[in-house]
C-alpha cells in the first residue's frame, strides 16, 4: 500500500512552495504591464519623469522577478522528486506545457529582463519600450503555458490512456492548447496579477504622498494604478464568473463544495452569501442566500439544476462501480493484450478508470472492493467543504473591495484630490497585503478544490506520489521552510530599502553622472 504520510508530506511541500511562488508571480505580471504603460507615456511625451518612474518601479519588479524565478524552479523539480508516478502517468501531456513554458516564455522573459535593466543607455527609446513589452509578453506567456498545464489537470482533454504503457498519451495538442478552462483561467489569473501590481503601486505611492515624498512620481503612479487597476478589477470579476460557469460544467463537485450545497436545489439555485457548513450533519446552518444567482453563474440558465454534494456522491458511486469494470478489464489486457472482449469492456468503462483507482487507497485490488469501501471512495471525492466555502467568499469579497478601492482612487485622481485625501491614502496603503491574500485564496479554491484528484477524474493524487522515505520529504520540507523564510526576509528587506530610498535615492549600475532635474 502507498505510504499516506509520504503523500501528505509531498502535498504539503508542493502547496507550500506553490503558495510561496505565487506571492511573486502576480506582482511580476502586474508590474511588467504597468512598466509598459509608464514607458509608453515616456516615449510618447518625452517627459523624463515617466522614465524615472519606469526605472524605479522596474527596480522593484527586478527584485520580485528574481524571487519568482528562484522559487519557480524548485516546483518543476518536485514533479520528478516527489511526484514521479504523476510524471510518468501524465508526463506526455503535462511535460509538453512545462517544456514550452521554459523554451518559449522563460528564455524570452529572462533575456529581455537583462536588456530592460542594462539597455537604458544603449537602446533607443522605442527599442527599449519594445524590450519592456517583450518582458511583459514573456511573463504572460509563462503564465499561459503553466495555466494550460494546470487547466489540463482540472479538465483533461486531448489525451487518452494507453493500457500497455500505463499512462496518458497526447492525442490532440490543439485540444490541450484550446482547452476552454485554460483560456478562462489564463485571463482570470493574469487580470488578478494586474490587480496585484496595481494595488502595490497604489499602496506604495499612497505611502509617499502620506509622507510628502516623491509627490510627482507618486501622483502619476497612483493615476496609472487607479485606471489600470479599475479596468482589471472589473475584468477579474467578469472572468471569474466565466471560470465559475466552466467549473459548473466540468467540476460539479468543486462548485457544490464551494457553495456547501449538500442537496440539489430546485433551479435556479441561490448563491449562499453566508452560512456555516456542517460536515458531520451534511447541512449548512444560518444560510443567507441571493436567489437565482448560483444557477445563473454555474449553468447560465434558470431551469438547469446545480447538483448537490449528496447527489454527486451517488454519481461517484456509480462511476466507481464502472471504474471497477475498467480496472478488471485492464488487468485482463495486461495479461492478454489481444483479448477482444476485454478491449471492448475496457473501452466501455475507460472513462471511469480513475474512479476505480480511488479504491487503491483502501485495498490492493479494486476488483475485490466491498460496498463499504466503495462508499468510502465515493465520499473521498468531496473536497474540504468549509475551507473552500470560506476561501471563495473572502476572495470574492476582496475582488469587490478592489473595485471600490480603484474606483475611489480613479475619482480622486481625476479631480486632482489624491494628495489631500489622507484617509483614502491610509486605506490605500493598508490595502497592500490584500491582493496577495485574494490571489492565494484563489489558488486554494482552484487546487484544493480539485482534490482528491491530481488529474480530475483520471488520476487520484495519492497515486502520483514518489515512493521516497518520509524522512527525505521531512528533510526537504524543513529545508524549504528555512530557505524560503530567509528568502522572504531578504525580499522584504530589499523591497523596503528600495521603497524608502524612492526614485530619487536609487543608485544605478554603473554609477552615472548627476541626473537631470525632474521635468514634466
Amino acid at each position: 500500500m502507498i505510504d499516506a504520510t509520504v503523500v501528505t508530506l509531498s502535498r504539503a511541500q508542493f502547496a507550500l512552495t506553490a503558495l510561496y511562488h505565487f506571492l511573486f508571480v502576480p506582482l511580476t505580471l502586474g508590474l511588467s504591464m504597468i512598466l509598459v504603460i509608464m514607458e509608453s507615456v515616456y516615449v510618447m511625451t518625452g517627459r523624463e519623469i515617466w522614465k524615472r518612474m519606469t526605472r524605479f518601479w522596474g527596480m522593484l519588479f527586478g527584485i520580485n522577478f528574481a524571487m519568482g524565478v528562484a522559487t519557480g524552479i524548485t516546483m518543476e523539480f518536485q514533479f520528478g522528486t516527489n511526484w514521479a508516478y504523476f510524471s510518468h502517468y501524465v508526463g506526455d501531456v503535462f511535460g509538453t506545457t512545462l517544456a514550452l513554458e521554459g523554451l518559449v516564455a522563460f528564455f524570452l522573459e529572462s533575456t529581455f529582463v537583462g536588456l530592460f535593466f542594462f539597455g537604458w543607455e544603449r537602446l533607443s527609446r522605442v527599442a527599449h519600450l519594445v524590450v519592456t513589452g517583450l518582458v511583459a509578453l514573456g511573463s504572460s506567456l509563462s503564465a499561459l503555458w503553466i495555466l494550460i498545464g494546470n487547466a489540463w489537470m482540472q479538465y483533461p482533454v486531448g489525451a487518452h490512456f494507453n493500457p500497455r504503457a500505463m499512462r496518458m498519451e497526447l492525442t490532440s495538442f490543439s485540444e490541450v492548447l484550446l482547452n476552454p478552462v485554460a483560456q478562462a483561467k489564463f485571463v482570470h489569473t493574469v487580470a488578478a496579477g494586474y490587480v496585484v501590481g496595481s494595488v502595490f503601486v497604489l499602496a506604495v505611492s499612497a505611502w509617499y504622498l502620506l509622507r510628502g515624498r516623491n509627490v510627482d512620481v507618486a501622483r502619476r503612479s497612483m493615476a496609472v494604478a487607479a485606471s489600470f487597476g479599475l479596468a482589471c478589477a472589473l475584468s477579474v470579476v467578469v472572468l471569474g464568473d466565466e471560470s465559475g460557469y466552466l467549473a459548473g460544467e466540468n467540476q460539479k463537485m468543486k462548485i457544490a463544495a464551494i457553495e456547501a450545497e449538500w442537496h440539489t436545489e430546485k433551479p435556479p439555485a441561490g448563491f449562499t452569501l453566508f452560512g456555516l457548513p456542517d460536515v458531520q450533519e451534511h447541512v449548512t446552518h444560518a444560510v443567507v442566500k441571493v436567489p437565482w444567482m448560483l444557477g445563473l453563474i454555474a449553468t447560465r440558465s434558470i431551469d438547469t439544476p446545480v447538483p448537490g454534494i449528496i447527489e454527486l456522491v451517488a454519481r461517484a458511486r456509480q462511476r466507481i462501480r464502472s471504474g471497477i469494470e475498467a480496472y478488471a478489464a485492464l488487468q485482463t489486457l495486461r495479461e492478454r493484450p489481444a483479448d477482444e472482449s476485454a478491449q471492448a469492456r475496457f473501452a466501455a468503462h475507460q472513462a471511469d478508470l480513475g474512479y476505480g483507482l480511488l479504491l487503491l487507497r483502501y485495498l490492493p485490488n479494486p476488483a475485490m472492493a466491498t460496498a463499504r469501501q466503495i462508499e468510502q471512495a465515493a465520499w473521498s471525492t468531496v473536497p474540504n467543504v468549509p475551507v473552500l466555502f470560506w476561501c471563495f467568499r473572502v476572495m470574492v469579497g476582496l475582488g469587490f473591495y478592489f473595485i471600490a478601492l480603484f474606483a475611489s482612487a480613479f475619482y480622486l485622481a481625476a479631480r486632482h484630490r489624491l494628495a489631500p485625501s489622507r484617509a483614502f491614502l491610509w486605506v490605500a496603503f493598508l490595502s497592500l497585503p490584500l491582493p496577495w491574500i485574494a490571489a492565494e485564496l484563489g489558488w486554494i479554491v482552484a487546487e484544493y478544490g480539485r482534490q482528491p484528484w491530481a488529474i480530475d477524474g483520471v488520476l487520484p493524487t495519492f497515486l502520483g506520489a514518489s515512493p521516497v522515505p518520509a524522512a527525505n520529504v521531512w528533510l526537504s520540507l524543513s529545508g524549504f521552510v528555512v530557505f524560503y523564510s530567509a528568502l522572504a526576509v531578504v525580499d522584504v528587506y530589499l523591497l523596503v530599502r528600495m521603497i524608502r530610498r524612492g526614485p530619487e535615492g536609487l543608485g544605478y549600475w554603473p554609477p552615472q553622472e548627476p541626473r537631470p532635474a525632474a521635468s514634466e
Partner: protein
Amino acid sequence: MGGESSEPPTWRRRLRRELTGLLALKVTALALLWWLFFSPPHRITVDDEAASRRFGVAPPRLQHQEDNRGSELLTRGGRSASGASQ
C-alpha cells in the same frame, strides 16, 4: 569614488570580483543540491513495470517473452515456464 580619473573604473573590477564570487557560490550550491538530491542513488525510475506495481496490475507481457515462453514450453514439455514472464 575616483570616477573622474583615467584609470580603469573601480566599479568594473568590483563587479568582476562580485560576479566571480557569486558564480562560484552558485556552482557550489548547485553541485551540493545535485549530490544531495539528484545524484544516481537518489533517482527513482518509473517505467511501465513500476507503474504496473503501483496500480496493482500485471507487468507488461513482451512479445519476445511470450516467444521464449512458447519455446520453453516446447522443450520442457510444459513442466515450468513461470520464470519466462518475469
